[in-house]
């Protein structure tokens, strides 16, 4: 993946790009991207993958006028205008899925297909989401991963002081966009009918952070949406089951979104 920087109305955005095929915009989740997500690399075997750090995450500037997910969605409509790639496949995980939904209810003009991976955004009454901010690091790892992959993942953040700073930045940025109400927009479900592009929902079958009821609720509310699970992973399929993650997305796009 090649790193580059684009400037969006004064905000410098760090962007990874690599692979061959149709353009695919990857919107990362609350944990950010720490440089070696094998699932994103696997996607690059079939797509031209574009993966920016959201404002305030990773090595991207904070954008002073982007306070919440609604602002972020409009910001990304600007990004899509600027990139001028025509219609792109959009894949979003966690709050990246939420962001994809907020973009799509506003305007699907730039979107060819939508894949929502363990997506935040919705509120299903009576089915609480876990709180990734309050728990200790060991408990956070148990929320994010099904296997014992977590400590290795966390070590990669502790490998350099640069990476550790980015870990802290990512948590602060995630709080900025998703603190209250935690990980959701209670009004989002009113507008999901507006989504008029092929949509696929992908969930780690051992997910604990955003219960599976959220996957079925999304399927019910988004016209024509399909749903699949990935075995042996929780909130982070792109890290824990990269081949299955990329395979599932490629299969959906090949079959439904052509």
């Amino acid at each position, binding site marked *: 993946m090649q790193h580059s920087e684009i400037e969006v109305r004064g905000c410098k955005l760090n962007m990874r790009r690599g692979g061959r095929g149709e353009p695919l915009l990857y919107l990362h989740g609350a944990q950010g991207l720490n440089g070696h997500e094998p699932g994103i690399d696997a996607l690059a075997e079939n797509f031209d993958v574009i993966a920016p750090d959201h404002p305030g995450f990773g090595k991207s500037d904070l954008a002073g006028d982007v*306070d919440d997910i609604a602002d972020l969605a409009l910001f990304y409509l600007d990004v899509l205008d600027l990139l001028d790639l025509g219609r792109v496949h959009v894949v979003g995980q966690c709050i990246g899925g939420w962001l994809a939904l907020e973009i799509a209810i506003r305007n699907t003009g730039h979107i060819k297909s939508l894949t929502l991976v363990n997506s935040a955004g919705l509120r299903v009454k009576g089915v609480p989401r876990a709180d990734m*901010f*309050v*728990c*200790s690091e060991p408990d956070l790892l148990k929320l994010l991963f099904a296997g014992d992959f977590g400590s290795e993942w966390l070590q990669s953040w502790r490998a350099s002081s640069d990476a*550790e*700073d980015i870990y*802290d*930045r990512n*948590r*602060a*940025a*995630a*709080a*900025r966009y998703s*603190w*209250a*109400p935690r990980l959701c927009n209670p009004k989002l479900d009113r507008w999901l009918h507006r989504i008029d592009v092929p949509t696929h929902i992908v969930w780690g079958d051992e997910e604990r952070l955003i219960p599976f009821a959220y996957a079925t609720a999304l399927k019910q509310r988004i016209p024509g949406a399909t749903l699949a699970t990935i075995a042996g992973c929780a909130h982070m399929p792109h890290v824990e089951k990269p081949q299955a993650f990329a395979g599932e997305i490629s299969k959906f796009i090949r079959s439904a979104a052509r």
Partner: protein
Amino acid sequence: MKIFIFHLMPYADLDMGYADKYRAAWVVLPNTYFDPKKGHELYNRYLDELELAAELGFDGISVNEHHQNAYGLMPSPVVTASALSRRTKSARIAILGNAFCLREHPLTVAEEHAMIDCITGGRLITGMVRGIGAEYFSLGVNPAYSHARFQEAHDLVVEAWTKPGPFSFEGKYYHFDYVNLWPRPYQQPHPPIWAPSTGSTETIEWAAHPSRKYVYLQAYSPTRSVARYLNYYRECAQRMYGYTAASNQIGWSTPVYVADTDEKARLEAKPHIEVLFNKLLRLPFEMLFPPGYLSTKSLKNMRSHKHSVSGQEHTVDTLIEQGIIVCGSPDTVRKQFMDTHRLLGFQNLLCLLQFGTLPRDLTEKNIRLFAREVMPALQALTDKEYAGMEVRAAE
């Protein structure tokens, strides 16, 4: 020097076995641990203790705000301050502090402070704080905007107290078409504003600004941190802003226990002060510093130094050694404050004379002994006894 008594109003009847089941005495500790009948007794006892201090000649009595925890039972310090308003005649009533920025509507708190100031004929001191990290979990307020909301809530409240209404306030977080406070505060232009903190250079730089000159109060810190931050206020005033800070612009807040001898003081304080630090202040790092509450730089500092008072297991001996508490015979305690004053010159001292599970009899003994044997010598301290510090002028 002005001497204040400070109270946290802890839930002293807490079953301390909670610690085997729960990570913290905050946020996640079920409120079934709170017995309202015991709460009734504790509130009234604690208010008695503050009223006693006012009778014994303390310059002020002080309360503060914390939410959803066993450490301090004052989610609204306005309630306790109001209860004290009519039961005291001359003592200052200091709310140190109120977290205006935790409210969606800080004007309601500004109104309440103005009421207390009118009722007491101008005895109110208003402390402005962000609230600790745990508060942002308990009240669902976004910690990433905490600093910015704090500043804006401050501006809104000060304008509401000082600017003729009605006017509109057009901020980023707060928007009001009609700001027109009835009543206005008794004190003009407004009640003194204090900024209590456990150590923040940003807060000091903000408080010391010539347009504010607010009292900075250093709380819960080892002696070396008290020295560093109080001196930083004076340095900051001189070097950043070009004026000499007055000694009444800084203060120190600390738990204090006095008994006949050093040995007896240590023994009597031990179980109760250890409950305060090890059980009631039990807060994991994630709750104390939610994401965005501190800058990345400050967070890094906190993590590497682990110098927060809640991050370690304390004994009465380590607390005394580090100067986090002041405990001993009247001579020892008096001397320690006078020595520290000679070095730092602070003109405000807040003493936490009830802490943790310290029972009624020992608390009353502590308050009386402090008031009789220690306080008069401290109240007599002025800048004459302060050794002063070399502050280089701005270059």
